[in-house]
């Protein structure tokens, strides 16, 4: 059984806006799936359809074999959802909130309290457990929402921008926690995010969506193969021979990298090299023509590079 199964899923809002268009996607159990795409791409809409908050316009979807359009409550029993629109009660404390939502899932008070304390500790909210939610900061609320979504130990966790309001340390912790849940408990994670660097650290597979359409799906390696075969090399130097510069520009990984920075003749560019062997060759060319090289680095394209390459490709079409 797949954790998530979407078959030609479409969602057209009543105003006529197509937010999800003919999406087909299967997620295996235990995957940490990164769902990426620009603002308004349709990520949140997809999560809502998968959890029965919205009815799909066409197509079908299943979450752990349950149809959210027909029996959303059965999906909810196995899924934990965290979105920015799913808030908690301001006049209750963090702990009281978690115990309340535990009860909503039929968990007894004692057990709820135990789980809540554990989660609060993991999310570094133990000190704020007795504080009313109205006294929580944005980041604290967000972390409490993650705790809330985990109270009933779901098989699949839907996270819509879980780390966008968090400071770097908290974001790191949350990511480690998600990773541990997936590894140790085999939890499936459906992660919508813009924070590509974090996504790259924890996701096992990615889907890129734009204007409701699923552009690509695959592991980081598969996505890399789709956009480039070699390495992405970054060079900062001055007095680069014109011929070389032109040649390198043509090999830029994406539009974004073609923008060379020019401070007092110093240029920075990122281009794609077929292999490592090419790098010393290019460097010596610059040096021999009297240029100074300040920085050279080579890496495989990051998720961010791939994202830009793919969205740029799409815009050209």
């Amino acid at each position, binding site marked *: 059984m797949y954790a998530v199964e979407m078959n030609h899923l479409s969602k057209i*809002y*009543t105003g006529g806006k197509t937010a999800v268009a003919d999406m087909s996607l299967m997620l295996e159990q235990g995957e940490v799936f990164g769902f990426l795409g620009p603002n308004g791409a349709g990520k949140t809409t997809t999560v*809502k359809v998968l*959890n029965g*908050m*919205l*009815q799909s316009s066409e197509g079908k979807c299943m979450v752990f074999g349950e149809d959210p359009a027909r029996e*959303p*409550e*059965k999906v*909810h*029993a196995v*899924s934990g*959802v965290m*979105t920015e*629109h*799913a*808030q*908690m*009660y*301001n*006049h*209750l404390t963090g702990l009281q909130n978690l115990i*309340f*939502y535990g*009860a*909503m*899932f*039929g*968990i*007894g008070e004692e057990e709820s309290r135990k789980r809540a304390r554990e989660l609060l500790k993991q999310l570094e909210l133990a000190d704020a457990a007795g504080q009313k939610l109205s006294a929580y900061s944005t980041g604290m609320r967000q972390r409490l929402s993650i705790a*809330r979504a985990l109270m009933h130990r779901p098989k699949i966790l839907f996270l819509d921008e879980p780390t966008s309001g968090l400071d770097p340390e908290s974001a790191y912790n949350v990511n480690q926690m998600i990773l541990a849940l997936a590894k140790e408990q085999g939890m499936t994670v459906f992660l919508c995010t813009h924070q590509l660097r974090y996504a790259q650290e924890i996701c096992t597979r990615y889907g890129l969506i734009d204007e409701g359409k699923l552009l690509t799906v695959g592991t980081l390696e598969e996505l890399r193969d789709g956009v480039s075969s070699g390495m992405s090399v970054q060079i900062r130097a001055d007095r680069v021979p014109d011929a070389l510069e032109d040649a390198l520009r043509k090999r830029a990984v994406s539009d974004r990298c073609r923008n060379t920075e020019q401070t007092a003749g110093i240029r920075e560019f990122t281009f794609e090299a077929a292999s490592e062997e090419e790098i010393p060759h290019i460097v010596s060319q610059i040096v021999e023509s009297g240029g100074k090289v300040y920085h050279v680095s080579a890496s495989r394209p990051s998720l961010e590079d791939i994202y830009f390459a793919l969205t740029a490709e799409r815009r050209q079409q």
Partner: protein
Amino acid sequence: MNRAISAIVKKDMWEITANRQLLLMIVIVPLVLTLVVPSIFLLSAHFAPQEMEELQELMGMLPEEMQNVETEELMVRLLMNHILPLFFLIIPIMAASVMAASSFVGEKEQSTLETLLYSPLTVRQLFHAKVLASFLFSMLVSGIAFLGMILVLGVEMYALTGVMLIPGISWILVLALLSPAVSLIAITLIVRGSAKAQSVMEAQQKAAFLILPVVFLIAGQFLGVMLLSVWILAGLSAVLAVLAWVLLRTSLAKFSGEMLLGNR
């Protein structure tokens, strides 16, 4: 499932008592209706009965067997069993609508509705839990108000005239049938009236407009009826109970539709 429903009921009750302003209203209205006004009436009936001419007319309409008691006692009975029950109905209406507005619209206002909807309860179960919370709250407030009233008026009456005050059969109808029925009607009207309301305030204002005419209508119609016969009162209570039931069923559809409306 029962655990979830009782958690919602408890949470909603807690929420309303945490709101000073609402709590004040819920305490003051019954206090005035069941204690202050009746006490004033009792005192004036005792010390200046001749000034209450309008009541003398009403008393003339009472059944014969009631006519041969003393004027003061008759007046008090008239108040106790025929007039007060009508005004008493304002209490369950008020309590139910304040609670329903806070319970239904409050979730929307705080963006907690979506979180509730992610629970394994069906929309129908959520609706029932919410209606139950408002209903129980309204019954609780009415019950306390009634007991308080009986106690205080009983003591006052005994001190003034030495006569024991015994609530008539109409109170049984009011407490057992009429109050629950009007509570449910108020709750369903709030659910309907507040479909588009985005804040609790707005819903309550709307609710007041919805409910005031109901109160006056009932009061106007009943004042005569109450004097005639308990049976007619019983019949009307039954009709209202049926109406409450029908409204409840149709509001469920409205509620589920509205839940998703904001998202569509």
